[in-house]
Structures are given as C-alpha cells and as structure tokens.
C-alpha cells in the first residue's frame, strides 16, 4: 500500500462560491423556513433536556429536596402518590456542521467540497436565522480549525469567510474525528455530517460516536455522478486520491457495471444504517442545486422542527 499523502492546503477558487446570487438564495431559503415553521417561538427548539420550560414532558417520583412547586397535586389526589411534573427545558439548540474536508472531496464537477460548503452555508444561515447556535467543524483525518458556535444572522459573513479559508487535504477518518469532536464539544446538539463517507474503515464508528455521546446525527451524503458512474474503459492505473495507492486494471463494461453496483450498494448501506437508527439521511448528487436540496431537507424534516 502506498504511503498516505500528507495533508495540504489546496488552493481552489472559492471567491465566486458565495456571490450575490448565492446570498439571495440564502435569504429566500430563510424566508421559506420561516413560513414553514410559522407560529413557533423564537429559539424554541425543544431539546431532550428536561428542565424549567412550560411544555409538560413527563412525571417522575418525588424525592427529597425536589421543588414542591412542581408536585402534581391532582395526581396525588387521584392516586395518592407524590409525582413531580417535568417540563422540557427550552434553550438555544447547538448545531454543529461537520464538514468533510478530505482530499476525496476535491473530486467532481462541481467539486464536492464546494457543493458541501454551499449546503453548509445555507444550513448555517437558516440555523442562525432561527437564533440557534451554529458552529462549523471541518475534518479529514483530524479536526481542522473550527468556527465556534455563534448566534445571529449577522454572523453569516464571518461564516462565509471561514468557509473560504477551510483547509483541504488528508484522509477521511470519520471514527477518529467524531471521537475528537465529541470530546471537544460538551454541549450536545444537532451534528450535521456533510461528507462523501469514503472512509476505508467504514462510517459506522463515526456515527456511533455521535449517537453514543447524545448528539443528534444528521447525515448528508454528497457524491458526484462521475464517481458513481465513471466513463472509463481500457487499461488504466487507478490511483486513490487520498492514499495514493495504485491499482492496474483493465476496465471492461462488465467491470464498470460491477463498480456501479458496488457504489450503489455502499450508499444503500449508509442509508439503511441511518434509517434503522432513526438518523435523518439525505443523499445528493452535486448536479442537484444546493437550494433544492435544502428545500428537500425542509420538506422531509429533521433539521428544523
């Protein structure tokens, strides 16, 4: 096996990535999101945390030291048991957008990375617009310099500037990166994972890290049509863009078909894994406009509730 390539800062042209047209689309998406969730209170995304909100959540037995004010006297009158009324605590939701910045994201037309950044920016803007705290954590084989969680729409420009400067390179190591992530960020929240999920060690470990540490994973798989169905034929040397590993193959139609099936199968495995574990999963081709994808996310739910 060839030695992995060192991480490098790849200078690709991102200046045009977030132009006026893009910003208009963001604003449009924000309005759509407001309409879709009209009537909701600001920043009233319910967390699983039970606390001092006004929305009833559950009962639990009274124990010494509990606040008397929350004893449900009606229940005591009916069943003669002291139960405490629990309310869902209302607080700012933390949204972490984990952006895959490995070398494999630099493939495709448009680059998967650019596409992912646009989606990332859109989701961030919507999150900020809903007064959530949104942070961006790029990663590859390790966590890159993050954008700390912040709130407020005006932060969008610093988000875009941050995305323009994201370093790209290195292998995809979901497991290690998610492990580092959960240990670094103690405030739980929504973890939107935007990646191609091309990790030779598999995607399960990374997603499980998030799940086991009380984060709510939200999976967004990005792929390029040419990598799903490459137009290859003849004798070739295939070089892995991350590991540099070379393999000489003679690509026939049958082999190409087998590859397409394998690629489809790999994506289905991720889909099934997420479905079984109630993880919102979206798969998108880079040919689909990013705003279309975001609208699809609105329709299916999971990002905004």
């Amino acid at each position: 096996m060839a030695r992995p390539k060192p991480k490098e800062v790849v200078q690709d042209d991102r200046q045009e990535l977030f132009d006026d047209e893009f910003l208009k689309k963001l604003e449009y998406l924000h309005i759509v999101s407001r309409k879709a969730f009209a009537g909701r209170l600001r920043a009233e995304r319910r967390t699983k945390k039970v606390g001092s909100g006004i929305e009833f959540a559950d009962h639990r037995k009274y124990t010494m030291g509990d606040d008397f004010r929350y004893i449900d006297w009606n229940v005591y009158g009916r069943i003669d048991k002291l139960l405490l009324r629990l309310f869902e605590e209302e607080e700012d939701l933390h949204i972490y957008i984990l952006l895959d910045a490995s070398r494999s994201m630099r493939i495709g037309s448009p680059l998967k990375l650019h596409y992912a950044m646009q989606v990332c920016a859109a989701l961030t803007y919507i999150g900020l617009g809903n007064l959530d705290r949104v942070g961006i954590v790029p990663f590859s084989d390790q966590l890159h310099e993050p954008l700390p969680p912040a709130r407020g729409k005006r932060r969008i420009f610093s988000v875009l500037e941050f995305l323009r400067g994201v370093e790209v390179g290195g292998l995809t190591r979901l497991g290690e990166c998610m492990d580092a992530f959960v240990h670094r960020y103690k405030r739980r929240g929504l973890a939107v994972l935007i990646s191609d999920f091309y990790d030779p060690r598999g995607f399960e470990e990374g997603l499980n890290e998030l799940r086991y540490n009380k984060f709510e994973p939200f999976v967004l798989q990005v792929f390029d049509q040419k990598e799903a169905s490459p137009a290859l034929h003849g004798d070739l040397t295939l070089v892995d863009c991350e590991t540099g590993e070379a393999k000489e193959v003679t690509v026939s139609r049958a082999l190409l078909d087998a590859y397409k099936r394998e690629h489809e199968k790999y994506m289905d495995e991720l889909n099934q894994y997420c479905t079984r574990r109630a993880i919102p999963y979206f798969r998108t081709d880079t040919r689909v406009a990013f705003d279309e994808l975001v609208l699809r996310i609105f329709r299916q739910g999971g990002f905004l509730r």
Partner: protein
Amino acid sequence: MSFLLPIPLATLGWVAAIAGGLTVTAYILKMRRRRFEVPFSTLWHRVLREKEATSLWKRLKRWLSLLLALLMLGLLLFAALEPELGEQDDDAQNVVILLDASASMKAVDEGEDGKASRMDAAVEIVDDILGSLGGGDAAMVMRMDGQTTPLTRFESDMPKLVRLVRQVQPSDTPADLRRALSAAADALRDRKNPHIILVGDGAYDEEALNAVVWKKAPENRLDAIDLGGIDLRYVPVGSTGENVGIVAFNARRYATDKTSYEVYIEVQNFGKKAARRKLVLYNGDVATDVRTLELKPGEKLRQIYSRGGGEDSVLRASLEIETKGDGAAKDKRDAFALDDEAWALLPARRKQKVLLVTRDNLFLEAAMLVYDNVEVDKLLPEEFDQAVAKGTLPEYSAVVLDEHAPANLPPPPTGLIYFHPSGDHAPFKVRSEVVNPHITDVNEEHPVMRWISMGDTHFDKTDVFEVDSGKGQVVLASSVRNPIIAAMRTKERKIVACGFSVGGTDFVLRVGFPLLLVNAFDWFAADEADLMTTYATGTRVRVPMDGVVGAREADVISPTGRISRAPVADGFATFYASEVGVHRLAAKEGDKVIAEVKLAANLSSPTESDIAPSTELRAGGEVLKTPDAFTASHRRSIWIYLLLAVVLLLCVEWVTFNRRVTV
C-alpha cells in the same frame, strides 16, 4: 494445393519466427496505462476481488486475443507462399516464352501490306499463346536481345503478362540466344511439364543452336546448353530476306601521319536478288562522298576511303535504295533500316606546341625533331622562370624541363616532362639515388611506355622516386622496385618525370627516347592511337577514360538522350551500347566533367542483317516444332481470400478489443 513460393522457405521461416516473436513479445509487454484518480479505491478493490474469481477466464481471453493475432500472422505468411488450388492437375504447364526483341525484329515486312514490324507480329503471337494457356499453367516471358530480361516471374495472370508483352520494344542489339536459352532452362529447373517457346525471326548464332543438348551434357562440354526434359518450340516471324546493310564501318588516323585518316566500310547484300544502293559518306552534316554500289545476291563489298585533314568529327555512312530508271525510289530504306546507317568517330588531331626548358641539350632537341606534330620553342631556365612569374609565357601543350624543377609552373592543363628533377618542387619526392641501375620493369600498359624497350639501357646514376598510387601516381619504369620513371595525373594536368639526367645515359641514343617523348605528348593530348571509338551494339567493352582518377562512375548519354551509368575502375569505363549511334561517356566529379569520351556504336552484325526468316530452326540436331495447343487446366490463387480472412479477423479483433471482450 500447391505453392508458387515467391519467397524462399528459409526466408519465410525467419520472417515467421521474428514476426511471431514480436507478436508474443507485444502481448507480454504491458502497455503504458493511463492514470486515473479515484476518490475511493476501496470500492474498486471490492469489485476486483470478485473479478479475481473469474481471472482464469480473463487470462483465457488474453490468450484468445494472442491466438487471434498469431492466426492473422499465420494467414499472412501462408498467403505469402501464394498457395493455389487445383494444381494437382498433371497437365499444368510451365512455359517460358522467349520473345525475340533483337535488332532484326525491327524489320518491317509483316502484315497484309507489309508495313508492320516483326516485333508487332511477334507480340501478337505471344498474345495468342498466353491466351491459349489454361488457368493451371504458369508462364514467364523473357525479352531476348543482347541481354535476357525476364518481364515477370512465373505468372498465371495472363492479362497482366499480355499487358507487359505489349510494351516490349526491339533494341539495336543482336540476339544472344545462348544466354536466353540458358536463362530459360534455369528458370524451368525442377518445374513440371517445362516448355520453352521461342518467338522470333531465327536470326540467331548457329553456334548457340548447335550447343543445345537434349540429354545430360558430357562434362567436357562446358559450352553446352542443357535442355534435357524441356520441350523447345519455335514460332517464326518475318517474310522477306531482301536487305542490304552496312556490316562494318570504322575510321582511323594513320599512325605515321596523323593528319590523314582512312575510312573502312563493308556493305553486304543479304537478299536473293541483285541490289543497287547509293552509299553516302557524311562528315558531320556534309556529304563528302557518294557512290553507287551494285551488289549481286550475297555479295559483300569493301570500300576504303583515304582522307586528309579532318578535325574531331562524326562520320556517318548511309545506304539508300537507288533505282536504275529515274534514280528516285519511293522508299529510300529497305525492310531493315537499322543497318542502313553507321557511325564512326574521327579522333581529334591538333598540332602541339612544346616548350623546351634547357641549357642547350642537343640530345633532347634532336629527339624533338623526329615528331612533325610538334612545334618546339626553347628557353633557358631563368628566362622560363621570369616569363612564368610575369605571366608572359604563351600557352603550351607541354613543357619539357631539363634539370629544372621550378616553383612556379605554367597554368594547367599544360603537360610537364621532367628530367632529373630535384629540390622541393620536384613532382615526386626523391627517395634515394642508385648508381648504374638496370631497368627491370616497364609498365607497357601505360600509353607513355608503349613500344619502348629499356632492357639494356645504361645509366651512370639516377634518382629513385617515391610513388603513391593512391594519388594517381604510377610507376612507368623501375629498377628492382626503385621507380626511375613515373607519371602522375592530377585533376588538372598530366606529368611524366624521369629520375635520370639526359646527359648521363645512353637511352637518349636509342629509338625509345624520342618515342617516350612522342608517347608522352600524345598522352597529354589524349590522342591514343590504340583507342577504338567504334563498337558493335550488344557487346560489353572496357573503354579507357583518359587515365581518369577518382571517378567511379561515368554518365553514358545515348544517341536518343537517355542517360545511364557505367562503372569506372582503374581508369576504364565498362560500356554496353544498346543503341546505334554516337554515345558520350562523361566522368564527373560533382558537376564538373573531368574526362569525356565519344563512342560510336553500330549494329555490325551480319547475323542480324541477314533478316531472311528461318521457317525451320535446328537446335541440337533436331528440328524445332511449332507449339501444340495447350490443354485446359484449372488453378485458382487463394491468397486474396486469405488476405480477406485476415482483414475479417482484424475487424473481429478490433471490435472485441474495443468492446473489452478480449481484454
């Protein structure tokens, strides 16, 4: 199935081995692959792992591809053998047609009006013969004149042969039947049912016909033409034998009086009727003599003309038909016009101016007096040097330098004769000096030493030259490997040098001494008494190119302007005249002509001029019959089908390769 085997089997074997090896090597060597970057090679590994299970089939497909390539190669090589179907037919013939294209075939006596040439008639006959051959027969047509030229190898494609035969033109050379029969017999060696069909007018050398043997020739008969087992047939052409021709024509200068020359003409009537001809002798374009000749049947007349004067010119003799009545004939030429004209060259004749540079040497001056073709001037060495330095020296053909080797020489091409040259400017480096030498070797082939004997000549002493043959220097006389007299031909001039002093030898008292001077003057002027300038067509001769050095080839410009090449070796050009008329041989260095010789070529062949057709020809004691009709045979060449199969396989290979079936 049979094979024509146009390529020897051994050669084909080598080609097969090399081509097969290259094909296999090409399959073994991996092609340089394109690099393609993929984002996730793990997926490819998974796919390829599955494919590993079917790798045996994959390898087999590779083998199939190789086998396909080898099959194509095999088919190509097989096609190269020219396999043919149907030759099992034992009646299939192998025929060599000897088409007479010699000079006599130019005779015009064929056709209904007698206006067609014998060549036209012969071509028609050959067309018929080729048309009567069966599909299984193979024929080769050989053109026969002074040389024998096969037009093709053995062919079954008769239309192709007919096309080639129709392009044959007769030449001006006599037929060499011996060479033609030998070549035909060699071509038919080991072939089934061999035939030779000779189509011509029968004007052939009797000796060649008598040399034919029908059984294995005895070992002591090296001249025999072995036609054992070969069926030789003859188809005659021609109808008339009436012809008067010039069979000899030449001109030469008198050796004693080179200002005069004589011309020799020999005219013969080959017909059975008396003939009357007007013989006109031209010098250039000017008729210098006209005679009327009355020739009885078979009579040969010899005419000798003595002429005075005459410079370098072309002589032409012409025979014209003359009738007794009004003296004007409708056609001036008879049926065979080629021998009605002949050419000869009169070599150049120039008075030479010679300068003698000496201090009153009586022997030298006296020797000059014997040759009336020279005008002699005399200068003292100091006067000579001054004149050369001032550039006031008149132009001389030759300068004789007695005991003087000056630094400045007259401009070329003035020839130089040195006696006892010494110092830095001697033409040859002096190696040593010998006392009382005896001449042991004389180069009699050199024109300067012609007719000179030096066997009992005495010298008190003489210088010995160092002679380098690579620089065009040649030893003329030597005393036990010590060159005493030497000659040199540079690109510009000719030089003769004698190592001895005129006063120190008794050679000056002998006949050889003035002869040496005369020969040297003649050599300088390229005036060689022995030079023949008239040759018969169809013969190969060595012609001296005036001692030319360095040239390896000479351009031969024929009378019709055709330019060919003649090899030159040791100053001689090998010349073959195929046309009647005046030829020009020019040896060049770059674009500059360094030596030029004119030669005349005439038919000069009584055998060819005797155009009476031989209706019956005897070879090896047997009368040659006309050919029988050929029985039909069938044969089909299949190389084209093999080639088509290769193309088809190539398409299959291309399609399967591109569709990734055989990769």
